[in-house]
């Protein structure tokens, strides 16, 4: 085979691949909208920086986006700052240098990403903030209404420990990281609800910084000091695993009413409700958030508006899971999202 023939053969092969790709698209039913969507999404880049890739929600969101990215042919780049705001800043800085089309971030606190969000918007990268919000708005906030989450927990507390229930109303607070945007709003809600329910009495407050070990130690100490404690409005399932363990260790399982909140993953929520570790669980439905996130990202990718021009909020719907209300669809698994999308 001469060189010319090689070139010819190569060109033919390329042409055939090209035809095949066009054919694949051509094969798909296109009502006009589908084609526009496919064209707008193909080849785009979405960068994703959660607080850490080491917990269920971040993995669930990633799985949901990946499923969509695989379908539509856009690229998902993940950088993992692993619980360090400083590393997060570096990670976002690096990603912005690559000029992604959409940046999905989960801020640690209101301040540290503020400048970066502005920088991203200035360079035309659209910003979605997931579950936590910085002082600077991006194009979309997708996630929990933290005020409602905490307020719902307090309502459950009142029901379980208030005068109406015939209990002493003694509760203990174990917040996460005070500067966490969710925590800041949640604290506000708790204070408001405490005014609304004067029969609830906070006997102890100590932060556990989302660390289950710390939460365990804190809870154990509080339970020793207040053996008659009625309930604990928890902060996050990842932390309150430790709180639940402490209650069990103190032999007060079923006696202390522990409410927690979280993404509602099967092993972190429903299983614990089933074994009685949590009395109630306020779920902001990580799988639903994944779907909201994908929806926002996909619509921003198709949107030709200037970055940051119309910030929108997509707040998650809340589910209260208890032994009584729990059903097969109450929780989700990452495997399920990976296989079937959000």
């Amino acid at each position: 085979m001469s060189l010319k023939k090689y070139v010819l053969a190569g060109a033919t092969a390329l042409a055939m691949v090209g035809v095949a790709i066009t054919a694949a698209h051509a094969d798909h039913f296109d009502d006009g909208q589908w084609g526009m969507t496919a064209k707008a999404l193909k080849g785009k880049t979405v960068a994703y920086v959660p607080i850490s890739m080491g917990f269920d929600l971040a993995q669930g969101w990633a799985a949901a986006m990946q499923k969509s990215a695989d379908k539509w042919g856009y690229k998902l780049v993940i950088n993992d700052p692993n619980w360090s705001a400083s590393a997060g800043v570096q990670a976002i800085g690096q990603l912005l240098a690559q000029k992604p089309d959409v940046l999905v971030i989960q801020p640690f606190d209101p301040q540290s990403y503020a400048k970066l969000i502005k920088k991203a918007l200035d360079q035309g990268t659209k910003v979605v903030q997931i579950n936590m919000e910085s002082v600077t708005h991006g194009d979309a906030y997708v996630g929990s209404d933290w005020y409602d989450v905490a307020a719902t927990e307090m309502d459950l507390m009142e029901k379980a420990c208030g005068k109406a229930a015939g209990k002493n109303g003694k509760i203990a607070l174990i917040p996460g990281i005070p500067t966490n945007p969710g925590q800041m709003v949640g604290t506000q809600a708790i204070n408001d609800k405490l005014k609304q329910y004067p029969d609830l009495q906070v006997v102890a407050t100590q932060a556990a910084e989302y660390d289950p070990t710390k939460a365990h130690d804190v809870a154990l100490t509080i339970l020793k000091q207040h053996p008659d404690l009625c309930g604990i409005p928890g902060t996050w399932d990842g932390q309150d695993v430790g709180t639940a363990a402490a209650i069990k260790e103190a032999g007060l399982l079923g006696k202390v009413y522990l409410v927690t909140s979280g993404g509602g993953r099967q092993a972190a929520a429903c299983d614990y409700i089933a074994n009685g570790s949590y009395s109630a669980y306020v779920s902001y439905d990580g799988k639903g958030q994944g779907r909201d996130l994908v929806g926002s990202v996909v619509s921003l990718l198709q949107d030709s508006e200037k970055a940051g021009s119309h910030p929108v909020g997509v707040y998650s719907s809340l589910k209260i899971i208890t032994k009584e209300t729990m059903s097969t669809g109450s929780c989700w698994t990452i495997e399920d999202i990976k296989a079937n999308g959000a």
Partner: protein
Amino acid sequence: MSASEVYARWRHRLIPDHILGEILSKTWIDNAIPFAFLIIAIAFFAFINPHFFLLSGLGDMARELGEIIFVTLGMVIVMLAGGIDLSVGSTFALSNFITLALFNWQGWPIGLAVLCALLAGAAVGLLNGILVGYLRLRAFLTTLVTLIIIRAIDDTLVIQYSTKVVVPITQSKVWDFISDGDIYGIPIPFIVAIVIAAVGHVLLTRLRPGWHILAVGGSRRSAHNAGIPVRRTVAMTYVMSGILAAAGGVFYASRLGTAGGDTGVGLEVTALTAAVLGGNSLGGGRGSVVKALLGALTVTIINNGLISLGLKSGAGSLALGVVLLIAVAIDVRWLKNRHKVLSKVYVSPAYFKLPPCPSITEGSGSSYALNDKLHDVELIGLGEIDAAEDPILDINDDLFFGSRKGDIIRYFGPDHKRWEVYVHVGGMPLGMAFDRDGNLLCCVAGMGLYKVVKDTRKIVKLTDETNRTWLSIVDDSRMRLPDDLDIAPDGRIFFSEATIRFDSYEWMVDGLEARGNGRIICYDPRDKSTKTVLPKIKFPNGICVAHDGKSIFYASTWGCTIERFWLEGQKKGTTETIIADLPGYPDNINRSSDGNYWVALVGLRTPAFDLALRKPGFRRRMVQRVAQDEWLFPQMNAGTVIKFTESGQVIDCLWDKRGVNHPMLTSCNEHKGYLYLGGIVNNRVGKYKVPGADPNFTNQGSYWGAKP
């Protein structure tokens, strides 16, 4: 010549093996490994992620790098003094909190807020300093405890007040400039860090406190004995480290404007990794600011590179831990083995083939035939003398020679019974000569060319530096082993430097290399210039200006030749070999009264060593595998003195057959009918009556026409 010998000859001519050893003996080699790490890190991440080094990404990285540099500098200063500071991460976080609390929350002027943060850092440092420096607690445990205590304080403050401190109530242009500004695209924190690093470099290398730190880290006891306030110095390093960590915290505050529980967590490991990766020794005393910068840069690149790889949580810390482990292992191994490696590879033999060795057999008719003329030499200073090199007499018949203690000894003439230390020069005085004015000139090994002024005995350095050879790895501008000198009629001093690769105490090792490591240097007193005249000579040793002053003779010891270098006339600037096949290794050359020249042969060639010279591989294996006292060296136990004519004809030969008086001869000097003999390991000077010699001949007379 066999094929393998041809190969050996060309291989050693073409491949400069000696360069490896010379590179390893350089002090900057300590920076080579960290630099290699840096290059590998850059290459690796650039290969994995081409976007990684895009300019805007670099800008962000430089901002963070500034903070890491500050903390690493502090860590390195403490490590240099032999300590370790694990509390830097907590101090960093505390400083971040204080800056934000005072500025954002309390609305203080930013300058004052920063000052308070730095003072807090200094206070933590002082606490460490008092505990470790003055109370002599263990640095590791003490600073670990400080780490925990300060972290606990910081955590309490963060939990209590963090929501308040992150919301700024005031604005400051200066603060905005520090946090966002840059000069020509270089972020302010990085610029400030580099400036502080430059100051630190000057401190450590040029100023007394820095030297004290290095001295304390090098050897605490010696530093104490030298009068250095060890405790205060150690305490001071912790204070510096505290201030520098706090400075890092201030820039962190400017960059992120937040106070969380994660601030500065694990920073001590980052700084420690940076310090060790940069080549700063954990044991103290060895390190520099440049190493700190190299390490900080490498670690920041690795850290950010790992983030950009999108590794799973924890994998980044794992990778950094592995890097630290490797760096520590290399640090320890390198420190331990560098000298071993160096000693193995430094000696680098070359191929050399000597012409056939002339016979010295008694009655063979050879010019070098054995006799016993030195049997009855008169001995001077027997047992009093240590290493009489180059005995020389002045016009008053006083006898001068060097000793290995750095003295020049004078025996008073004419009987040479009484003696004194004429001057103490230091180094190892070797070849000597009197100049026109009767001043004594001397080549001092390890020092240079010196003059002892005639009556005042004032010691004057003439030169210790010559021109640096281009591309020479060994710094050949300094003189290592100036050997012998002579003075031309125009006053120029020609002297030999035997080798630029070895010091005087290991001069024989140079013989194992058989490479042209030496040179002839000329010092011109008229313009005080020094210039290398003839480079790459095999151990140039004795040197003597011809009777007519138009050429110089010099001996190439390992080459077993006498060479003549023309200073004037048609052959000016050329060298010719006068005697190509001496039976031994020539040393000092001096004039004789009958218009010829004396040369001492320090040792005799042996068939074994002659053969070894043709087998460089053999000599290299010997050096690498056998203890030094078992090495095959040139034979130095029997020598002789010969007299040769200007054309290279050998006309006399003096042997000490018993090998008692002068088993090893390095010098001979004729004076008033006698030949004075010295050896560099002799404990005597021999005085031999030369039959038929001019009883009025003196060197000064021969050179300068001086009369007694």
